[in-house]
């Protein structure tokens, strides 16, 4: 069984935020609108964080795309009272929106802030353009990055139909597909020959907040 993971090469990231937009479109994320956005009610499963270092004129800005880390020791799964969020065998941290009671305990427990709450009835700019592969979430539940699990499942089915094993590169997440700099890689970290497994061994590789012991499955390659 594959153990999915992601590598993000910060040297290649241009902070264009196309990944954020692609993710919103792919995963039917509701749009908060300017007013609610001001109040901090946005939903961006993959957000690009800006890190500003120093003062003008000696200022440097770094950017950090932040999907769900799909931790191997996920604090959110540890605290969920009803098991609505759980760890799958293939390494994904999944969210069952039919079980979620909306207590938001997982949100305070996540050190990365990857979880989003539906503060109101979700609204979409157009209904026709919703992705039929991704279920809509009702108001009052928590949602988060799924590593495009619907694409993973579709790739598995396709490989099975063609009577072959899943190959490296069969699954492309929406953020990866749209990334203008080609900074995002996705694949099986368990397979030593996969691109992500090789990149993860690079000297520049690091994980976010490793010291907390969450064992993230998203690996960053630091800027050179």
């Amino acid at each position: 069984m594959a153990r999915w993971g992601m590598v993000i090469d910060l040297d290649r990231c241009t902070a264009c935020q196309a990944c954020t937009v692609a993710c919103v479109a792919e995963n039917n994320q509701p749009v908060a609108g300017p007013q609610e956005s001001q109040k901090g009610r946005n939903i961006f499963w993959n957000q690009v964080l800006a890190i500003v270092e120093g003062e003008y004129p000696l200022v440097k800005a770094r950017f950090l795309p932040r999907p769900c880390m799909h931790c191997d020791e996920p604090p959110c799964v540890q605290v969920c009272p009803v098991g609505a969020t759980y760890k799958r065998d293939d390494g994904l941290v999944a969210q069952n929106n039919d079980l979620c009671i909306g207590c938001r305990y997982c949100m305070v427990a996540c050190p990365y802030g990857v979880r989003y709450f539906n503060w109101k009835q979700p609204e979409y700019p157009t209904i026709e353009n919703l992705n039929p592969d991704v279920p809509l979430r009702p108001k009052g539940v928590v949602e988060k990055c799924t590593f495009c699990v619907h694409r993973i499942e579709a790739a598995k089915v396709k490989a099975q139909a063609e009577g072959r094993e899943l190959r490296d590169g069969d699954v492309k997440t929406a953020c990866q597909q749209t990334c203008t700099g080609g900074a995002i890689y996705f694949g099986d970290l368990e397979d030593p020959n996969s691109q992500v497994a090789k990149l993860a061994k690079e000297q520049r590789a690091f994980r976010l907040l490793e010291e907390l012991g969450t064992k993230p499955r998203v690996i960053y390659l630091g800027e050179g």
Partner: protein
Amino acid sequence: MNHLEEKYLQPLMHTGSKYYLTVVVLGLIITWALYAYFYQLIYGLGVTGMNTPTYWGFYIVNFIFFIGLSAGGVIVASLVHAFNIQKFKSVARIAELLAISCLVLATIFITLDLGRPDRIWHLLVYGRLGSPLIWDVIVITTYLLVSLAYGYFGTRADLVKCMGAIPQKRRLYWFLALGYTNTSEKALRGDRKILRGLAIIALPLAVALHSVTAWIMGLLKARPGWHSALLGPLFVVSATVSGLALVSLVVVLGRKLLKLAIKDEIVKALGSLLFFTIPILGYFLFAELLTVTFAGEPAALGIFQEMVYGHFAFVFWFNLILGLLVPFVILAFPRARTDFGVGIASLLVVLGVLAERWNITIPSQLHADHFLPYPHGVYNLTWVEYSLVAGVYALGVLFFAICAKLFPLVEIEEGTPPEERVPSLAEVKKS
């Protein structure tokens, strides 16, 4: 009816227009809160001030506040049964009633906070024993059952007496006593034994209740400001102080408004107990803040600075000065341990602990940049939150007011010396 029973039953017989006015006002507040709740149900939790990153707001502040306030019941019960200080028996029922109502209010607050209250039964059906929230569900339920049992066994003998004294409400008391009518000496002794047993169970259970509530927050490594081994003990101490203060406040108010037959020395004793517990809370807060400042870890230090001279400075200094220091100074003078002195001091302590709860819950979340460079959050209460919180408070007061008219809040004592006798009902009416 003899004069003794009359002394205790007077609040039940005599209901003034002010009482009815209070009930109507409380009813109006609750109705308004119901409207606010339907509004929240329809439009979602977005009608509150909560947002990313303030995932938990005023409802959770009140949840931990009321869990803490429920401690009064077990303190008084253990004073009576474990330490055998019989004089506190007269306030045991009030304390237990407060414990029960505070626990119910806390449960209401957690329900208000849910995004999907229609799925609250998931907690029972799909509950995961690994989650601290489920530990809290278990311990709150157990504690509530023990409190209810304590309240029942401590009251049923008096309910039987009421059956005799107020024949027109015989059925009601029969129902409240669950059909029990035995008042023989042997049965009373049996009741006392059960009460003693329940008090012994309740003490460790109370420690568990307050610790588990703290651990909901304290076990999260993602939250500097919460993630501290001291949080459990701090909650136990905060609960003791605020619970004791609430009992004192209600005793003082009950003496004044409901003319409850509670002696002066009880107020004095409650005042001095409160005096000795306040510094323990002060010490715990100091220990926590010293550790944070000395270590100077940026994440926790940032939250602390925000509390001391930042956005939350008012709440912090209110807690420290008006909530701890001023009541401590007032109660330091034995002469000030009067109804007024103890009343003011305990009111300040209760408000101070509410401020402390706010500063535990909110600042750690607003400072979203502990680890990752998220912008600082803002949290402004909306009318929905104010209305709902006011409504739940009103519900608590209403519950207490109704109980005050249903059964005697003070245990009916046999053999009170004649000089303690208060004027009988007929005499009161004459004057």
